[in-house]
């Protein structure tokens, strides 16, 4: 018998679609797209076995720019759609792309419960501390004193701390990346995909149009001084005290992911559907 043909590993380029991104020149999201495609190639995956799900915003355009299956969903609901997909099709690798507005404001509640459920997803949030697509409104991670024409003098509101929230809500893997280092970001995404359960990668991704001062993030971003921990208490202490520029894996939990093996369904979906059908005498 002939040996089965083995498909050659794909390159990062083969995970890109023919659609050209329309982000502003210099946007950090270009780098994140490159990192995602590099990570998928390094993982030896094939586009037909990967789904990229997103919501609304600049970052959420990513599914169209990959050759994987994509779902460009409604605002803030990317995690809900991705959870459904992963539970129904556990063999797929499901990545979720979002931004700080889509993921932490409109989709904030889904974020909490996705962390809690611990479904095996990789959630990549491109955080630029601003709503870029709608022309520069403050987002949940915007600094309280960031003054703009739309928020003169700043909002005065304390920023949301996504990594701490993720940890407290039960995320199984937490990392922070910087788009200025696309290869490092690729390596973190690769680790996130490999880690079972809900993996959260926050990528600092400057908005060069509405927050041009974020170009200076490259001077602040540096490797986290200590390696990851699996101790939530230790991780909480680190996350609460860091300045938001420590890059690397910050928490690697050991919770078993939610899945078919841990979901104790007693009734097959078909039987359940049949139980809802109306008989002729009841129609």
């Amino acid at each position, binding site marked *: 018998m002939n040996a089965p043909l083995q498909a050659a590993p794909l390159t990062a380029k083969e995970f890109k679609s023919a659609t050209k991104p329309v982000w502003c020149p210099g946007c*950090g999201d270009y780098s994140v797209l490159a990192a995602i495609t590099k990570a998928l190639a390094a993982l030896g995956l094939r586009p037909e076995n990967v789904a990229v799900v997103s919501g609304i915003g600049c970052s959420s355009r990513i599914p169209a720019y990959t050759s994987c299956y994509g779902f460009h969903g409604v605002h803030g609901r990317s995690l809900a759609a991705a959870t459904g997909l992963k539970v129904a099709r556990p063999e797929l690798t499901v990545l979720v792309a979002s931004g700080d507005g889509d993921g932490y404001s409109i989709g904030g509640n889904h974020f909490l419960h996705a962390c809690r459920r611990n479904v095996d997803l990789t959630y990549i949030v491109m955080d630029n501390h601003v709503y870029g697509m709608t022309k520069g409104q403050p987002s949940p991670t915007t600094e309280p004193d960031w003054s703009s*024409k739309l928020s003169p003098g700043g909002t005065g509101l304390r920023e949301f701390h996504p990594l701490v929230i993720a940890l407290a809500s039960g995320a199984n893997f937490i990392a922070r990346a910087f788009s200025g280092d*696309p290869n490092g970001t690729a390596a973190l995404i690769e680790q996130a995909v490999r880690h079972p359960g809900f993996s959260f990668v926050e990528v600092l991704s400057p908005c060069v149009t*509405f927050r041009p001062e974020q170009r200076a993030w490259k001077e602040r971003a540096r490797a986290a001084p200590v390696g990851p921990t699996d101790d939530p208490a230790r991780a909480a202490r680190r996350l609460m005290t860091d300045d938001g520029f420590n890059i690397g894996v910050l928490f690697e939990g050991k919770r078993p992911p939610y899945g078919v093996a841990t979901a104790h369904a007693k009734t097959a979906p078909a039987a359940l559907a049949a139980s809802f059908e109306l008989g002729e005498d009841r129609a």
Partner: protein
Amino acid sequence: MTKKPPQPEGAYADFMARAYAMELEAVERYAQFADQLEGHNNREVAELFRKLSEVEALHAKRILGAMGWPSLPALPVAYAWDTVEAPETAPFDSLHYLMQPYHALQIALQCEVRALRYFEDIADGKAPRAVREAAAEMAGEEREHVKLIRDWMKKVPKPPADWDRDPDPPRTSE
């Protein structure tokens, strides 16, 4: 680049594979920059980046030819550089939608200078002789490129101080 006789696998082949990967990354990045500027209707700079991408592709092809590799070699892991990216790769955030050809050449010059230093360091280091010789040869080529780009920059207009002033900026929301 002169064609080398068949070489044993090892440091030399690894070095050449790495040099090849470096060129490929530059090819890809310049092409991405061209796409970005085309998308924003800055055609002059887009065209220049496209040209730079083609030039780097020629270098990559020459390395393949010099090594006699019939197809792509087993490249080192893409993110195995000591630096954030390969020395000849321009950072993603280098662009501005109003940038001019002079700026594009400034970016290219920085990349070539970084590549020159990379090869010079290897040529002056403690690598095996074959590697040092190849690195010295490549450093010579990069030196030539630095000069070419500097000459090119003299031929394009230097941008005025307010080159990034946009009378209809994207940040007006009122």
